[in-house]
């Protein structure tokens, strides 16, 4: 977003600068050239004035191209002046008769322009009695161009001669180039200022967005105490940050309420349940002989209810827990848990086997991961018929370490696979197996809190595989 915003701002800026700079450069070049042209026209006009043609009739002038006697000295003076002019300004100057023959020319080997060069064009126009209008613009990249200005010398309404100056455009072009460089430098400076301003502006606008983004990510990944620090930025974004904080507060409050409710409920139910169990005990004392089985069953129900309460409390605590993942050798952890479960599995006639690398380093909260593994193993052993086996596989790839517990129990249908791990969910076919239906929920909560995840897949031909995954490297929770 920052780059896009910067790009847009800078493109706009560049467009504005170009829209201003290009015409400015053009106008500058035109002004420079017209100053030169006006200058040359003035010069030419002065030469035209000095042309000694006064007092001669039009007819005589037309018939006889030579000036009358006495003018020779003035003609000579004109030539000298032209030579000096040429020497001084580097511009060629020539005064020509209508037929193109020179009256005074400097340098001496210069002829009236012919053909269809711009000079010839100007010459023809001057013969028609028109002054040269602005010749084509000279650009700095034009090579070796000259600027031709032709001026008609009019006597008694007739064009008797033409004064042509042809100046090299080198100095003009370098002057234009120089002006342009100044303009370019100005624009570059403006662009630098614009870039600085744009960077600051986007930073100012985007800083609250970035902090918001970070806080949202934190909250999404479970760090509920993340908040947006009040900082600069546009008022709208500041308001958004405030609203975000309020929202986060409310979410945390609601979650705490819910958690506290679960904890309180499981807590508060203990007293009535205790009273109930005591009454059952009392009732059992009054019962005649032979009802021990029923009494035992009622006691068992009470114990089951008590375990549900314990699990609920466990879930509330697991959700509240803020585990600190650390590097753990998950193979060692799995082996330790398997050793702990072996007697219990042995009692049910279930074999526990494992396979995996000697070391599998992963980032996990060892207690949370161990508890989750316990819940999964408990489940697997419970559903595996005697004589079968529960196999535990540790596999490590680049991203994560996966501990898969596969049983050979009845397994679950696809529909059931989607629901497993939901709170209190139990397969309708397994309602009579011990448990509250919270074990896997607690396992999932514990794993998620530690940055891992819990997934389920079927085993062929029947059974369920539960995979506990922990990241290989520290994840940014």
């Amino acid at each position, binding site marked *: 977003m920052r780059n896009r915003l910067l790009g847009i701002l800078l493109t706009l800026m560049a467009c504005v600068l170009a829209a201003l700079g290009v015409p400015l450069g053009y106008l500058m070049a035109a002004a420079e050239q017209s100053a030169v042209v006006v200058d040359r026209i003035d010069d030419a006009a002065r030469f035209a004035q000095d042309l000694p043609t006064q007092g001669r009739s039009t007819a005589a002038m037309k018939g006889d191209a030579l000036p009358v006697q006495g003018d020779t000295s003035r003609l000579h003076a004109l030539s000298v002046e032209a030579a000096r002019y040429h020497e001084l300004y580097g511009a060629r100057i020539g005064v020509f008769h209508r037929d193109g023959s020179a009256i005074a020319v400097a340098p001496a080997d210069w002829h009236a322009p012919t053909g269809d060069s711009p000079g010839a064009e100007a010459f023809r126009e001057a013969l028609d009695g028109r002054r040269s209008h602005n010749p084509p613009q000279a650009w700095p990249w034009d090579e070796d161009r000259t600027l031709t200005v032709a001026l008609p010398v009019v006597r008694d309404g007739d064009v008797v001669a033409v004064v042509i100056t042809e100046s090299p455009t080198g100095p003009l072009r370098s002057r234009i180039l120089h002006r342009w460089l100044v303009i370019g430098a100005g624009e570059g400076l403006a662009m630098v200022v614009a870039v600085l301003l744009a960077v600051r502006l986007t930073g100012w606008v985007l800083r609250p967005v970035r902090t918001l983004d970070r806080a949202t990510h934190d909250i999404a990944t479970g760090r509920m105490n993340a908040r947006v620090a009040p900082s600069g930025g546009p008022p709208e974004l500041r308001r958004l940050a405030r609203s975000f904080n309020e929202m986060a507060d409310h979410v945390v409050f609601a979650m705490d309420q819910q958690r506290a409710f679960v904890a309180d409920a499981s807590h508060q139910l*203990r*007293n009535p349940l*205790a*009273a109930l169990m005591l009454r059952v005990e009392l009732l059992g004392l*009054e019962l005649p002989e032979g009802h021990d089985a029923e009494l035992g069953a009622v006691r068992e129900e009470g114990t089951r209810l008590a375990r549900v309460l314990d699990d609920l*409390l466990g879930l509330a605590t697991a959700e509240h827990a803020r585990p600190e993942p650390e590097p753990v050798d998950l193979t060692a952890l799995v082996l330790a848990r398997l050793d702990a479960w072996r007697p219990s599995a042995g009692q049910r006639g279930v074999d526990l086997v494992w396979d995996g690398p000697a070391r599998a380093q992963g980032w996990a909260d060892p207690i949370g991961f161990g508890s989750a593994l316990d819940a999964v193993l408990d489940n697997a052993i419970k559903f595996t018929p005697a004589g079968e086996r529960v196999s535990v596989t540790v596999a490590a790839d680049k991203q994560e370490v996966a501990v898969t517990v596969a049983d050979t129990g009845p397994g679950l249908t696809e529909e059931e696979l989607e629901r497993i791990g939901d709170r209190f969910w139990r397969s309708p076919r397994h309602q009579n197996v011990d448990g509250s239906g919270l074990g896997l929920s607690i396992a999932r909560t514990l794993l998620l809190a530690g940055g891992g995840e819990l997934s389920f897949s079927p085993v062929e031909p029947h059974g369920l595989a539960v995979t506990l995954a922990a990241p290989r490297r520290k994840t940014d929770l």
Partner: protein
Amino acid sequence: MRLLLVEDDDRVAAALVAVLGRHGFQVRHARSGHEALDALVPDGNEPYRVVLLDLGLPDRDGFEVCSRIRAGSGVPVIMVTARADIRSRIHGLNLGADDYVVKPYDMGELLARIHAVARRGTAGTPAENTETPTGPLESRGVVIDRERRRVTVEGRDVALTRKEFDLLALLAQSPGVVYRREQIFSEVWRSGWEGNGRTLEVHIGSLRTKLGLPGLVEAVRGVGYRLIPDLPADSGEAGR
């Protein structure tokens, strides 16, 4: 055996008092910490052997009551509470509680724990006469000499088998209190499994015959057995 029950929930307390009464305990119910501390002041009656202390009390914190009990007397305290978290357990035990039971509990477990802390409570005062041969059965003419493992009735030696003696000695620990079958099996037969049907009944029968006092060991239906020290004083506080 006198017990002090500190519990603010009347329904739990009523049920517990009834059950404990059926087991031969004399139970006093205190509804608050204040009342409990008052009840523990010696008043000439038989001292309380065990205090069952609920932590959620209306007037003061159960932990505080526990430390005050501990400061004033050596009576064993079992915390009976709904707080299951490990920190409360540790805190309670650190404050001087002898045991910690979380509600809802199994009655058999609670009774076993009561007996356990009561036993430890008496073991802590070996100089007292609770375990001396002339102990609590003098009035019925039965004297149990634990060191020599001999029993005399009215001065006459009675030859008992090892299990019979252990059984009598166990019941004599707390006369009047009903020992549950599972507890008798645990302590006499050292087994958590309740034997092959009639083992206990057979031993009780032969014990009664050998002692010549059929009413001394009484069967409480559905619970277990108890020793009745004095025939007329039987219906005392126990049935409250």
